[in-house]
């Protein structure tokens, strides 16, 4: 039996002013999967993630999350429904400490589940247990808890950004180019961690320039060209597809 559908984009058109960045994008992410979107610069990958998380509003089309229509909702509402985004370029809060950065993730915990205050003095048990989970994934963050986020290395900042997104215990994690600007070894570690996160039950939608790594990691892949899906299929098949090998894998 196929897993339940978690996220669905139907013919989504997003504009930057007069420029149409998404020209009818339709994708589907099922629960428990890692789905990747690959494509060239300007294909609309990041725009797609920004549209899902509500930062950009689609002009037409619909987005469904767990069966609910989330098109046009405010980003904070979407975050509270269980979609957590790790934005491109990490966008951590450089002047806050590592710990404070992680606590920021708690704003997305809905109040009715007894939302934790990120205030240290009221740092509840739940906040601590979530911090411990993140530290278990990224031990280096535990050592640097009190350091300002901006002083971390690129790889550590990426870990921090992922850790921050996990603090709200999301159902769906959106990752925008997690390997960007990282040394191959560090990028490899990040990809390993993404797999680990997924095994613990978090569905992942990954955007990557590094097509080979993304396809090896994921269950299903979408190739974006000019704001729409050019090719889709199980990642293993895409890895062996002649056209993809030529255009995106450089063979």
């Amino acid at each position, binding site marked *: 039996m196929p897993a339940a559908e978690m996220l669905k984009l139907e013919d989504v058109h997003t504009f930057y002013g007069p420029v149409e960045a998404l020209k009818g994008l339709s994708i589907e992410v099922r629960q428990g999967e890692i789905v990747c979107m690959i494509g060239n610069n300007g294909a609309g990958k990041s725009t797609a993630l920004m549209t899902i998380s*509500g930062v950009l509003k689609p002009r037409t089309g619909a987005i469904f999350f767990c069966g609910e229509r989330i098109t046009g909702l*405010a980003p904070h509402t979407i*975050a509270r429904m269980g979609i957590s985004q790790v934005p491109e370029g990490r966008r951590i809060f450089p002047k806050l400490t590592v710990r404070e950065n992680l606590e*920021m*993730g708690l704003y997305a915990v809905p109040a009715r589940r007894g939302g934790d*205050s990120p*205030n240290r003095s009221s740092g509840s048990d739940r906040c601590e247990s979530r911090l411990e989970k993140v530290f278990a994934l990224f031990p280096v963050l535990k050592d640097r808890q009190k350091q300002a986020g901006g002083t971390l290395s690129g790889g550590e900042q990426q870990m921090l950004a992922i850790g921050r997104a996990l603090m709200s215990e999301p159902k769906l994690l959106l990752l925008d180019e997690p390997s960007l600007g990282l040394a191959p070894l560090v990028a490899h570690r990040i990809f390993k961690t993404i797999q680990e996160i997924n095994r613990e039950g978090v569905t992942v939608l990954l955007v990557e320039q590094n097509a080979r790594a993304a396809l090896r990691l994921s269950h299903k892949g979408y190739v974006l060209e000019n704001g729409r899906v050019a090719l889709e299929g199980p990642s293993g098949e895409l890895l062996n597809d002649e056209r993809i090998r030529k255009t995106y894998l450089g063979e």
Partner: protein
Amino acid sequence: MKPLIIGLWLSLLFLPFKGPEAALWFFLISSSTLCAWKEVAPRVRTVIPALEAGMRRLTDRAFFTETVSPSLPYAAIAAFSLLPFLVRDYFLDVAIMVGIYVILALGLNVVVGFAGLLNLGFVAFYALGAYAYALLNTSWGIGFWTALPFAVGLSTAAGFLLAVPALRLRGDYLAIVTLGFGEITRLVLNNFDSLTRGPNGISGIAPPSFFSIHLGTLTLFYYLVFLATLATIFVTARVRSSKIGRAWIAIREDEIAASTMGINTTLYKLYAFAFGAFWAGLAGAIFAAKMRFVSPESFTFLESVLILCMVILGGLGSIPGVVVGAFILVLLPEVLREVQIYRMLALGAGLVILMVFRPQGLFGGKRVSP
């Protein structure tokens, strides 16, 4: 060579106003100063980091971090609570103005320093607080304490109402709209003769009383301002380290990241505007009670700029910094009263020098979040 050219150019500008002899003197003085500065400047640049490192070594010592700096606020509170017994009335008068500006600057610091929203019309909320008390008191004889919640409530509500449309804008556009709001408020006060008595202002405002004690004397009024200032410092510091304060700082650092973290950015920005306006309203009511007279002249755009300067001078977002900034910018014109017409010039030069050597403000180098 360069100092000579600059000197010549400046003295040529000077020539039409003061005649050739003064221009020559000006040329000699300015070019020799610039020459000397050219020699000294590189050394100053090396001395400043060394001084900072020395300060840090000193302030990092256990004795300093554990004994001196926690007790510093208490020492300041003790010193200021004894002030009326130590100084002449003139200084007490200045101290009251310092207190009012500390409240104002801390209020603006919430908007500009914490949430990162440039508000150039902050004086409007100050004016609303002042006029609210002035009108309630002179028209209906309502006392200070009864009128205070209304004055503060009015300016808070105004902050909220301005924020609703203004927060659709960002950066420069927001600054322009707030500037416009400040000017509109002043012009309304200036022209709404039947209510505000226009440019003549409202006089005969009663000073506050506490039970049956009249707080008309300078000493008692000083304590009132002192307590209000302490309350402002305490409350803004507490709010900054709360969930709301952390959200403000996140919005200032990266609004998009903050919104994807689940922070309702519009709502928190509204809070920042209203919370900042709240303190401006308090300062306004106190100001009206102190002066016992209000007129639109006290609430010009320059006043907004002055308050903003206090925040920037001390270091955006830093509460001790903003307090020190307000102290300096109220005290400096008083100290410079001797040189009368040049004092604004000196003040401006001082600000420029500070921005060259310490662009982050006096206290801005430290971490902003608690």
